[in-house]
C-alpha cells in the first residue's frame, strides 16, 4: 500500500479509536480528546514522514493548541 494512504488510514484509525475509547469512558472534557488527536498526529507523522506540499501548518497549529492546553492545566494545578 502507498505510504501516504497508509499514513491517512493510520491517522484516521487512531483518531477514531481515541474518540470511541474516550466516549466509552464517559470523558466530557474536549481538551483530552484534542490532546490525544495531537499525539496521534505527531506520532503518525513521525512514523510515516509523508511528503507535503507546504510547511506543516497543521502540525504547528496543533502544537500551539497543545501548548495552550498544557499551560492551562499547569496553571490550574498551581492554582495561580
Amino acid at each position: 500500500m502507498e505510504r501516504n494512504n497508509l499514513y491517512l488510514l493510520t491517522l484516521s484509525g487512531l483518531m477514531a479509536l481515541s474518540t470511541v475509547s474516550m466516549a466509552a469512558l464517559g470523558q466530557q472534557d474536549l481538551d483530552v480528546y484534542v490532546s490525544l488527536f495531537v499525539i496521534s498526529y505527531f506520532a503518525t507523522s513521525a512514523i510515516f514522514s509523508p511528503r507535503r506540499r507546504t510547511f506543516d501548518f497543521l502540525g504547528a497549529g496543533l502544537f500551539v493548541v497543545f501548548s495552550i492546553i498544557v499551560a492551562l492545566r499547569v496553571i490550574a494545578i498551581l492554582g495561580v
Partner: protein
Amino acid sequence: MQGNYQSAGAILLGFGAVLSIVSYSLLQNIPLTALGLGSVIVGIASLMLPPNPIPSSLVREMLQNSATNIEAVLEEFGVKGKAMYLPPREGRVTAFITLEERPVVEIASSAGEVPLRVLSMASGSRGVTIFPPGSELPKSQEAHSEGSNEDFLRTVLVDTSELVRSVKSNTLGDTEVVEIKGAKSIPNLPRFNHCLGSLPSSIAASALAYKTGRRVVIDSEDVNGTDILLILRTFGQSADRPKTEGMID
C-alpha cells in the same frame, strides 16, 4: 484514493467543521464534537499531501528499466571496470567506467576532467560515460542538499524513490559508510551490479556525488538479502557543479 487526496480532504474538512459546530453549539455533545475535530484534522492532513503523486511502484519500474538499458550498453562495450561517479554537470551526475578491469581508486584520484561523451579516456584508460539510473533524482531534491549526507540519502532513496525502507549513513573523512535496509528492488543484472553496484547502491553513490560535488567510488558493497552495507569513497575537491559544453556522441 491516490489522486483524490484533495477532494477527500475537502469533504472531510467540510463534514468535520459542520459536525463539530453543530455538536458543540446545538447538541452540546463532546464526543461528537471531538469526532468532528478529528475529521477536520484528517481532512487538512489529506489536503496537505501532494496531488497525484507518481506511484512508488512506477518509479521503481522506471529505475529498473533504466538499469536494464545500461546493462545492455555495458554488455555491448564489454565493460569490466568499476564506476567512478562524477560530480554533476548540467545538474546530472554521470559515471565513468573503464573498459578494462583497473583499480577505480587509482583512476578517481589521478584522472583529470572526463569528457561528457559515451566513449572517453581518463587517466590513460578508455571507458564509457553513462548517466546512472536516478541521476536526475538528486537534482529534484536540491532543496534538501543543505542538510547532512544521511538526510540527503534518505530523501532520495526513502522519500522520493521509496526504493528502500531505511538508510543510515556515517561520514568518516573521505569515506561514507551507508547502511541500507529493506531494499525493494535489486535487479539481477550481473554486469550492472559488477560495474555500478546494485541499484540502491548506485543511486546512493549518485546522490553523494551530487551532494558533495566530488568523485565517488563504491569501495565495497555487501548485499545480504534486502540489506546492503555500502562503503563509498569521495575524491577530489568539491566542484561547484561545473557546466561543460560537451555533447553526447
